[in-house]
């Protein structure tokens, strides 16, 4: 059986009429769309085609992610490959279907109208997936039907007559395995050769789903399709992973493992990067001639870049875990197990993993919400994620707790007062998240009775290639988008801290513009028990929470280190116990993180939600800190 079977005469019929949509970029001979139902292996095919030459494109107004990539065809010309969202049909009902429909029809200005379609279908599920072929083929674009998961079809004892199917559909059909590369040449051969426009075939009424299914089932039968045996290993693994007792236990172990990786395996790597950035900064400072530009580069740009880079190990580790969980198929089971608990606060199972990720950093958490298809659930998850105690809060918490709370055993020798206070702050953030979720889901983001539908993919062995490409993609998104913002803000803050210059030298921080801003905000934060110095710290920590430690260090003229006794002593002199607790509460609630704001803007497609989120969290932080200050001052005196 040949891997590719031609359908109809392969006459080099000229393509469809001049496509509307945006103009084709120069040097691009062909625009190829990858279309397929969810879980058909579309992304694997796309990754195999484009490798590292891909980028993410976002369409205005929608939050559906698009991927664009370039490939070089065998005839030497370049082609643009567009990865479209997974859809079951082309009737534009959901956002995903709308985007797929619009791109294929050439209605969007972001992507030129495709002139070639790779329709990828899961061969282990062919009878069902063929119903999408009806709507895609009726577009009249040159199409190759790619039947994926050939290896699985074979091992599970299924079969399909590729030539018969090609004859029935009137387009070439290839049976491949995108993951292992089996039969892969057929796709390249097809793309490199002349592509026939499908001759019109008798298609069923596409909008009538039962009829479409009947057509697909009959077509499968005519093409000698025998469905594979049920996935035995998936049944066996589910017997363990969805076992009433073992299931939740394994789920708990997975959660602990992810946490452990974030908090134990990542810090040494983060330390390494931190030291590398510091060392290279020192080297730069020593090498370059003394100038204002050098100071800007070293203190502004370098430390700005460093403050972003330092979180990279955590984020990559997190996405390594997420990638393995998702590609293996376990993530869907985890979502199933977590669903009931999440439903209590109005969310759903798929929100669980992003919220877990938020304990490391809200930025990857927001990116991880892409697995949630329901837009309202996704936005609610994005909006509460920054309440989870991220690792950037830790240096602030550590500094203040160490300065104000003497260490005494609380629960035996293991849990002392300081650990208890830290746990309390974690609980506070969690409580705020849960309350906010309930609030959102009962008001602005109330779901329109959209039921929770979760397809359970069979378990599969994750491939290094897939996980690696995903890691690279997440690293690029994190460094690119969040990095530019945090870099800009750190440079701006540096400039503000250095103007107006006095006699050619930088002013004292109290006299600089930052100091002026600090004093300007002082009246609004006085009720919380903060002075203007804390005000400056709050302003600079808008870039990233932990920046306040360094800023306070600079203001008090001492080394900005959370463990430094000098800074702790200075804070004890300057801050009442009420003010200290208020500061902790403020940091638990406030959204002081430019990277998160930037990512939320990107993921929600506008400023509306990040603005609302920033305001809501800010107001909550102020009220919380005010109450904390009053209560503690009344208690302690």
């Amino acid at each position: 059986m040949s891997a590719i079977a031609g359908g109809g005469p392969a006459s080099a019929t000229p393509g469809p009429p001049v496509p509307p949509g945006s103009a084709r970029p120069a040097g691009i001979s062909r625009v190829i769309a990858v279309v397929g139902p969810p879980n058909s292996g579309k992304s694997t095919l796309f990754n195999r085609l484009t490798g590292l030459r891909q980028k993410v494109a976002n369409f205005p107004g929608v939050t559906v992610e698009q991927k664009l990539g370039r490939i070089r065809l065998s005839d030497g010309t370049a082609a643009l490959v567009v990865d479209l969202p997974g859809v079951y049909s082309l009737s534009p009902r959901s956002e995903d279907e709308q985007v797929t429909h619009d791109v294929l029809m050439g209605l969007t200005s972001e992507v030129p109208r495709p002139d070639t379609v790779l329709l990828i279908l899961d061969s282990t599920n062919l009878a069902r997936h063929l119903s999408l072929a009806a709507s895609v083929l009726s577009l009249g674009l040159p199409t190759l039907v790619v039947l994926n998961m050939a290896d699985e079809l074979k091992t599970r004892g299924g079969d399909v007559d590729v030539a018969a199917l090609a004859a029935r559909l009137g387009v070439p059909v290839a049976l491949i395995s995108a993951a292992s590369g089996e039969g892969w040449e057929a796709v390249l051969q097809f793309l490199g050769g002349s592509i026939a426009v499908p001759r019109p075939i008798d298609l069923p009424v596409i909008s009538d789903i039962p009829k479409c299914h009947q057509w697909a089932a009959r077509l499968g039968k005519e093409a000698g399709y025998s469905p594979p045996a049920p996935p035995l290993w998936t049944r066996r693994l589910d017997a363990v992973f969805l076992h009433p007792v073992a299931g939740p236990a394994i789920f708990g172990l997975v959660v602990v493992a992810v946490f452990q990786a974030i908090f134990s395996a990542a810090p040494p790597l983060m330390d390494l990067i931190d030291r590398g950035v510091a060392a290279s900064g020192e080297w730069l400072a020593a090498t370059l001639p003394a100038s204002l530009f050098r100071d800007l580069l070293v203190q502004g740009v370098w430390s700005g870049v460093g403050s972003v880079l330092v979180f990279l190990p955590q984020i990559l580790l997190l996405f390594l875990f997420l990638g393995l969980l998702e590609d293996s198929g376990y993530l869907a089971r985890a979502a199933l197990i977590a669903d009931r608990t999440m439903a209590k606060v109005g969310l759903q199972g798929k929100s669980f993993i992003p919220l877990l990720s938020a304990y490391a950093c809200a930025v990857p958490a927001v990116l991880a919400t892409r697995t949630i298809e329901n837009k309202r659930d996704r936005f609610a998850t994005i909006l509460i994620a920054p309440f989870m105690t991220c690792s950037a809060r830790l240096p602030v918490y550590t500094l203040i707790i160490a300065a104000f709370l003497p260490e005494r055993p609380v629960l035996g020798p293991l849990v002392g007062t300081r650990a208890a206070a830290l746990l309390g702050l974690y609980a506070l953030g969690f409580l705020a998240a849960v309350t906010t979720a309930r609030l959102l889901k009962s008001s602005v983001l109330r779901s329109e009775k959209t039921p929770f539908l979760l397809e359970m993919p069979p378990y599969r062995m994750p491939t290094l290639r897939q996980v690696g490409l995903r890691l690279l993609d997440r690293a690029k998104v994190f460094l690119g988008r969040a990095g530019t913002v945090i870099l800009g803000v750190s440079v701006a803050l540096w400039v503000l801290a250095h103007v107006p210059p006095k006699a050619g030298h930088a002013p004292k921080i109290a006299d600089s513009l930052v100091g002026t801003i600090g004093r300007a905000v002082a009246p609004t934060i006085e009720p919380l028990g903060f002075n203007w110095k804390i005000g400056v710290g709050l302003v600079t920590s808008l870039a990233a929470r932990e920046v306040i430690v360094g800023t306070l260090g600079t203001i008090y003229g001492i080394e900005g280190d959370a463990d430094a006794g000098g800074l702790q002593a200075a804070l004890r002199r300057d801050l009442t116990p009420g003010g200290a607790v208020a500061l902790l509460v403020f940091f638990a609630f406030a959204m002081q993180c430019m990277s998160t704001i930037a990512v939320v803007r990107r993921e929600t497609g506008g400023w509306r939600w990040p603005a609302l989120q920033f305001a809501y969290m800010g107001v909550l932080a102020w009220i919380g800190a005010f109450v904390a200050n009053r209560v503690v001052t009344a208690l302690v005196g």
Partner: protein
Amino acid sequence: MRRRFRYRKGSPAKDQQKEPLSLRDLRQGEEAVLEKIDLPDDVCRRLMEMGFLPGTRVVAARAAPGGDPRVFRVDGIEVALRRETAAHLLLRVPHTPNAAGAP
């Protein structure tokens, strides 16, 4: 291993004879034929696209702890549904004389 659904004690359907049975009443390993979907049009379409078509056989598989949501096998795939949704996927009731409470 697969069992046809049978009325049993404590089944919600026993008390309300007129109410058609739904996917919600299936226990693990039981199978039944779908009759209709009693949900808004767009949700109904989505379920149908996933394979929940009238006349299709559905098998109840494993569930999350507590039995909600439950995984259902339909048309070669597995889809998890919450109880509240499953209750709207109505089953073709077998007209067997031994059904409890039958006249």
